């Protein structure tokens, strides 16, 4: 029964069967909204789906076998770890997950950026390397407030079990932690003003410069899944879904995930790309400050602590 439930979470909801179309919808919505804010009509919502199909049907120029293998394995690993991360999201009511799944989830969410960095270096393109360096720097910078906020939540709840954390964390801690994590969301999705790594046109295509055909399609899939996983992570962490009606939980989860997309699109179209020093300053001055407040408060307001 438990295995069946886990498989269902991995493959159906909130796993791949839900997350793939949802990822395409989120990417399509973001592109559409960004186009509207720029005074254009923009592509149809189904655009990311067609992009992936087209890329899968291309046959790339020949490459060395070792390089081709590496450049296929890295995006596959990214897609797989995002699938795992989605399966861990505590959407279903009732006890699910296990002690320590917060740590596992945070790790799985960190693997795709790592794959991106490695593939930037593995592609041996100068643009890939510059993009990978930037991605490495910005993810270190961004993880300071991100992980601090998660630690604050876990300390306040006195548990590393996701379901427990979501239920028990007091609002005094939860709100500053939410602010810090929301601050990190555009950084993790590589959106403007934090689009340093994929810096469109400036670095050609950043770490993805040397990816082609099906390999690029895998990255597009990973990017869509990243949207679903990260928005879902924010929603499940901060909105306790404790209705006894499963359908209500699912609906609230889906709608709140979608609400985050226009907000991110507004930010992305209203801002220009920052330099790495400016982004660091912004993240550490404001993001880390809010996270530090959350950490300090969590020491005073912890529940059933040790």
């Amino acid at each position: 029964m438990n295995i069946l439930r886990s498989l269902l979470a991995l493959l159906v909801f909130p796993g791949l069967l839900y997350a793939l179309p949802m990822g395409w919808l989120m990417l399509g919505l973001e592109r559409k909204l960004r186009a509207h804010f720029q005074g254009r009509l923009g592509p149809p919502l189904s655009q990311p789906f067609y992009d992936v199909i087209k890329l899968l049907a291309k046959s790339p120029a020949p490459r060395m076998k070792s390089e081709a293998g590496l450049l296929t394995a890295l995006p596959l690993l990214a897609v797989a770890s995002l699938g795992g991360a989605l399966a861990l999201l505590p959407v279903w009511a009732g006890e699910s997950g296990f002690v320590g799944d917060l740590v596992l989830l945070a790790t799985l969410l960190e693997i795709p950026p790592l794959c991106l960095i490695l593939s930037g270096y593995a592609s041996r393109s100068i643009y890939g390397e510059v993009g990978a360096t930037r991605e490495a720097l910005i993810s270190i910078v961004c993880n300071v407030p991100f992980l601090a906020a998660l630690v604050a939540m876990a300390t306040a709840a006195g548990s590393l079990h996701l379901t427990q954390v979501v239920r028990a964390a007091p609002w005094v801690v939860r709100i500053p932690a939410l602010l810090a994590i929301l601050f990190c969301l555009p950084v993790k999705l590589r959106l403007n003003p934090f689009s340093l790594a994929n810096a469109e046109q400036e670095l050609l295509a950043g770490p993805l410069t040397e990816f082609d055909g099906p390999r690029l399609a895998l990255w597009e899939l990973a990017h869509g899944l990243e949207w679903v996983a990260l928005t879902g992570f924010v929603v499940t962490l901060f909105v306790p879904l404790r209705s006894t009606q499963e359908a209500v939980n699912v609906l609230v989860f889906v709608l709140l995930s979608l609400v985050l997309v226009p907000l991110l699109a507004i930010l992305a179209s209203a801002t220009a790309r920052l330099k790495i020093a400016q982004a660091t300053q912004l993240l550490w001055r404001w993001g880390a400050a809010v996270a530090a407040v959350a950490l300090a408060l969590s020491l005073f307001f912890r529940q059933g602590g040790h």
Partner: protein
Amino acid sequence: MSGLERGLLFRLVERARRRSAWLFHFNAGSCNGCDIELVACLTPRYDVEQVGILLEGSPRHADVFCVSGPVTRTTRAALETVYGQLPDPKVVVAIGSCPATCNVFAGSPAIDGPLDRIIPVDVYVPGCPPRPHAIIAGIAQAIETLVRRPASGKERSS
């Protein structure tokens, strides 16, 4: 795979190719006139992203290879390398009069063009520079060629 499934899959791929053509722009010694007109196609006035057309930063992502300029001797090697990096199926659009005929540079010892002496060209868009309408019409014609072009089998490994 049964005939029906094959047909459906092929139709889906054709539809995807028609609706998601990514361009790569190569300046082979152009005076920048055609380049400005090509970029104008992406602005709110023409907005080619409506039909899924994007200007990509990397040739490895692209389907449509847009070349402007008469192909000077210094750009020839880069042109050939970049053409080889585009994954199959691909089409080439010659933007402006320069890649088609070398224009006013014809006969110059510094010019290796016209473009079709170096790589196969599918669509010519004449003009000095051509208007964005003409460029969009040329790209649309190139996309129709792209849809019907078979991908050259499996990925070869060297």
